[in-house]
């Protein structure tokens, strides 16, 4: 450094002043933080009197209004977590509930790994989780762990001004018998969640245009020659591939969702006559049972590209979008996805998407899926619990103000997502919605038959099933790609099932 350059003298700072300023600054930050926290809390949890406008997180056009018939909520909001399906519609329904009952429900869309996120909250006993969507397997695991409430005590009552209008028997009487069975915990045979929708998963939807090109359909006469077994389905696809109708005529549900591949394996193996587990919950599937044949077929499908190989990386949404491209003739989907595929605004298959009716030679295709709505088991006041029950009933059953199936019908006529209540499905508005959206009138009948004949295996209720399903996903993907032999895959899954049963101390 040049000697001519002048270095400025460092200015002395008083240590006392420095510390005072530091401590003062910290106090200001803490005070501002505390103030902001207090203000946020007081605006988000309304304790106002009847007639006040209640803030809500519902991002909808329905603005919350007020009613004079219910007292204002005495405590904080009810927290409802949902998976990302039509949050707009859910928001509108929540806003409707808020306005009718002068309550506050905060709903949140959880993107990503649903199971992990909900488990975190349940383990923490979080007050920020009062109700959420759930599938049968998780509901049983979480119920057996005591994190979610059994609902056998749901009864008509008024608790501190909160009316619970319906009992569990009312709900049971309005449900189909198979749907009611889905709700019952395997361990206690008591209901552990309420039904949010019903679907038969694994139904085979079709692209009639491609079937016509392959010689299996006539779109003018609207007739089709559908396969009557999985073997026939694969043979048709091979034929269409050979004829150049499609590079990959079949879109399997082999995506990277943790439950997906395991579920279609269960559906297909049972349809082929393999019960998979015996009555004790021990694996009965083996290389020499139909499960083994199914895996051999799956390897053939992947290696010959009957199914696009990129399917292994697809999410559920990707898979639906993929079928909408119109590049595939058949795909395994939910019953209600038919309505999405019949929407010309987003699907190139529309208006030529149909659904294969129950097979005749094998067991019916389809896996009864009554996904639902649980209530968390946390320490809270009776009034708060009653509010949760009231909201659960509104969301899964009836609107007690009007006595109608408001939310189930609203969902059905907006999205086609089915309801396990026959009264909803036979509602004239629902029938006209279905009729207006199907490829041919018989498809409505087929859908009804598929829902009526679909079944749910008991092992879905085993505590360890949700973990087994995740493990299966990895093993099955490797098997399909041929990096694991059928024998190794089956042995790995059998061992895994036995280990999990041991780990969980039994089935329930």
């Amino acid at each position: 450094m040049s000697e001519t350059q002048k270095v400025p003298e460092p200015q002395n700072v008083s240590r006392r002043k420095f510390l005072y300023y530091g401590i003062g600054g910290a106090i200001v930050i803490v005070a501002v933080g505390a103030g902001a926290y207090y203000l946020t809390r007081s605006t988000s949890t309304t304790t106002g009197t009847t007639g006040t406008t209640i803030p809500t997180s519902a991002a909808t056009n329905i603005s919350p209004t007020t009613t004079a018939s219910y007292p204002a909520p005495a405590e904080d909001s009810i927290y409802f977590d949902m998976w990302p399906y039509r949050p707009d519609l859910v928001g509108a329904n929540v806003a409707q509930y808020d306005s009718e009952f002068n309550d506050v429900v905060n709903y949140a869309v959880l993107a990503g790994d649903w199971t992990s996120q909900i488990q975190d909250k349940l383990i923490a006993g979080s007050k920020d989780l009062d109700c959420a969507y759930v599938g049968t397997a998780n509901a049983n695991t979480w119920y057996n762990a005591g994190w979610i409430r059994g609902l056998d005590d749901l009864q008509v009552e008024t608790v501190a001004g909160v009316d619970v209008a319906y009992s569990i028997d009312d709900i049971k009487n309005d449900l189909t018998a198979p749907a009611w069975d889905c709700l019952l915990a395997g361990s206690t045979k008591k209901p552990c969640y309420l039904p949010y929708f019903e679907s038969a998963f694994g139904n085979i939807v079709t692209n009639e245009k491609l079937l016509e090109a392959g010689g299996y359909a006539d779109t003018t006469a609207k007739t089709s020659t559908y396969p009557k077994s999985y073997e026939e389905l694969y043979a048709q696809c091979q034929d269409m591939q050979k004829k150049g109708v499609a590079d990959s005529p079949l879109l399997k549900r082999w995506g990277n969702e943790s439950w997906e591949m395991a579920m279609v394996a269960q559906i297909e193996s049972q349809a082929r006559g393999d019960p998979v587990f015996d009555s004790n919950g021990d694996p009965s599937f083996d290389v020499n049972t139909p499960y083994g044949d199914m895996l051999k077929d799956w390897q053939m499908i992947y290696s010959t590209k009957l199914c696009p190989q990129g399917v292994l990386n697809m999410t559920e949404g990707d898979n639906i979008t993929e079928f909408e491209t119109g590049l595939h003739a058949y795909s395994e989907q939910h019953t209600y996805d038919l309505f999405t595929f019949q929407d010309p605004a987003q699907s190139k298959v529309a208006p030529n998407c149909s659904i294969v009716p129950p097979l005749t030679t094998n067991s019916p295709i389809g896996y009864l899926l009554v996904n639902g709505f649980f209530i968390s088991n946390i320490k809270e006041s009776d009034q708060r619990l009653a509010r949760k029950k009231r909201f659960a009933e509104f969301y899964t059953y009836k609107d007690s103000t009007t006595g109608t199936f408001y939310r189930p019908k609203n969902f059905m006529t907006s999205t086609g997502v089915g309801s396990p209540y026959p009264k909803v499905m036979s509602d004239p508005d629902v029938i006209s919605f279905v009729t207006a959206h199907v490829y041919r009138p018989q498809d409505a009948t087929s859908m009804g038959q598929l829902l009526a004949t679909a079944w749910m295996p008991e092992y879905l209720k085993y505590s360890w099933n949700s973990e087994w399903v995740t493990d299966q996903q990895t093993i099955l993907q490797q098997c399909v790609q041929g990096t694991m032999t059928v024998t190794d895959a089956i042995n790995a899954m059998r061992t895994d099932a036995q280990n999990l049963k041991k780990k969980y101390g039994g089935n329930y």
Partner: protein
Amino acid sequence: MRGLSTQKKKSSSSSFLTDEKFALMLVIPIIVFELVLVAYPLSYSFWLSLNNIMYVHRSITFVGPSNYIAVILDPGFLGYLVTTLRMTFDITVLVILGGLGIALLLNETFKGRTLLRMLVLLPWAVSEYCTAVIWRYLYSENLGFFNSFLLATGIVKENFVILTPQWAPEFLSIAYAWHYTPLIVFFILAGLQTVPEDLYRAARVDGAGAIKRFQKITYPHIRYAIIISLLLASMSAAIVTDSVILLTGGGPGIATSSLTWHIYELTFRDMEVGMGAAYSYILLVIMFILGTSYFQLLFRKRG
């Protein structure tokens, strides 16, 4: 010496605080911060790794080092480790080479340089979540950009799968490197700004070409920025989780099942918290070895 004695005199004359006490008070917030946010979780997770925890049964059993032994004996462990090292290598190479190249370009004087510097930063501003979603669509077999482009330009005759079991780790690394490279660009660019322009001029006069100039002038100035970037990039690469979860879900099959992905699966999906913690500690040891090697490299060079 004179200055020091004056300073000493000044500090000892302060009746309020000694140098040591004052220094201690200044670091107290950091010590508290470290204890709360680092030491406590680390100790707690270590304790968890010594227990078998069954959330469903609300049971916790002390099992000592059994979880660590189970990890080592886990037939999948080597696979997870290899995948982690493979992706770490891929990402680090891509990020460092890409970062260096872009930084050298942005260090040149040309029209629109400021705008380009801003644009280069954009992938870093995009969250890892969004990065994974964007690249999932880019890679899609029938709907993706790459397939459509290659098909439209006639380079390929039919759609092909990009995220195959063989190459999924590499393509996942490309997606992550796209997100992470801008940070490294700016580290290296900062280093490049310190190189005196006179040296380049003198080198040109001496007839040194571009490679020689980089070798003799640029590299020595940015060497430490590169080593720090290597450290940061490889540490981040070794713990990539969001991209794996959202882009491939550990698949296809187990192709992208890294250690962090497996830890996530064990801990949050299967609720095997003890095993998850044991795996985490093994990853921590690997990271520690990696980090120490870099620091040794850094200080040995400096020494």
